[in-house]
């Protein structure tokens, strides 16, 4: 997100436009090409629970190979409370848009077995 305008008045005038811009950019920032190397590190925390495709047991789905849009949609839905798993809300809540983009870039590169 860009820096706020310096003056109070311009900040005030610009508020509505800024709010709209943030709302629009939330999705697009997470959909921007992420840093897959950063995503690989972040993903080490995901794979403590999420199985590799073909090896799933119990109630946690594999996420390797998930297309970027589906991955970002899911994490944003947890982040904004539309999806209600407690663990994933906590996980997504701690991730910024840069982190979500990085994770999406990494997982999209993996091909399910």
């Amino acid at each position: 997100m860009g820096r706020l305008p310096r003056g109070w008045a311009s900040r005030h005038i610009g508020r509505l436009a800024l709010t709209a811009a943030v709302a629009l950019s939330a999705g697009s920032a997470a959909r921007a090409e992420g840093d897959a190397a950063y995503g690989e590190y972040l993903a080490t925390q995901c794979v403590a629970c999420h199985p590799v495709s073909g090896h799933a047991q119990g109630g946690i789905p594999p996420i390797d190979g998930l297309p970027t849009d589906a991955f970002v949609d899911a994490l944003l839905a947890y982040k904004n409370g539309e999806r209600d798993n407690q663990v994933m809300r906590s996980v997504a809540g701690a991730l910024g848009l840069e982190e979500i983009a990085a994770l999406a870039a990494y997982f999209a590169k993996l091909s399910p077995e």
Partner: protein
Amino acid sequence: MHPLSRRPFSRRHFGLGAAVAVAGLAAPGILRAQAKPRVVVLGGGAGGGTAARQIAKDSAGAIDVTLIEQNRRYTTCFFSNLYLGGFRDLGSITHGYDKLASAYGITVVNARAAAIDRAARQVVMADGAKVPYDRLVMSPGIDLIWDSVPGYSEAASEVMPHAWKGGPQTSLLKARLDAVANGEQIVMVAPPNPYRCPPGPYERVSMMAHVLKAKGFKDCKIVVLDPKKAFSKQGLFAEGWEKHYPGMVEWYGPDVHGGIKGVDPAAGTVKTDFDTFKGALVNVIPAQRAGAIAVEAGLTDASGFCPIDPASMRSKADEAIFVVGDACIAGDMPKSAFSANSQAKVAAMQIRGELTGARVFPARYSNTCWSLIETDDGVKVGGQYAAADGKIAASSTFVSQTAEDAALRHGNYQESIGWYSSITADIFG
């Protein structure tokens, strides 16, 4: 040139004394003279297995990784309550190290380490062999402080099992539980903080109650004598015990029992200020500290656990040593396999950065602890963590709520099964 020689240790980062700084400056010369940097991992549980595998996997042969673990097979303490309850067999919670060796090229040494020679940067094995390291990951787990409960001892644990380390004690407790007859009483002495697996004793009580209930035993009691005034997920367990096992579980905190005075293994009794409790089975979970090898290496503080830098998991006592898992002081994180796995990944990243120049990112940690109260009635607690205010601090936490619907609780249990499968693959390959 080795990356370490470009990035010598800095006292600005580590705040260590001049003597250590000199040792750090000497390290690049040693590293240049050898083929590969060497990482030794001590302890093959959740923290150690994860660290060894992560470093070997991500460095793709650039780092020589040795895992020292005295046992050839590892029975996880996590999920051992489900074995007690009859939901898992022992084989399904027991793992070997073959894959870490064959698939990741890790040198697995199944022998006992006796000491750490920090000055020489080597692990001294019980047989006198020396294993040198450039970086050491310590994941020794806990040791039990036997005399924290007067009358208790390692010998007494054959009569009053603790089962707070996976293995023969787990099987012993299961055998003793299965031998309890209708009308008999089980007594648990719960541990004081801090200890491995905060909800573990209370999930164990639930699984004991499940076994008794499933046999139709209506006249058994499980008495919990707790040195703590409150415990993890207390409201959830209290609700679950009342719902599934009405009248069977009695929990007494110090306000009621007045203090646990000691145990008499021969008589099968636990004495408190309030009364003496007799059990057909007495399960004593004593106070805990970091594994003895960490204590003897001077890595612990007065608490008995190892202070670490929350941004890297590096020991505050030695810049070449990282401590992960139950043995470390992890701030807001509980002592759990999930925490150990998470901490090991931070240490692994940091170590690869120092030894091979790999990218290092800000440390992030996660934990979730699932507990089973009765068939398909699972609850959970957890959070996300990062380095802040000089410790590993929670940035967000969650816990199951009372009166949740059956579908959610069933989903929690299913999650726990998925987690166990994934995390053990992440630890043992």
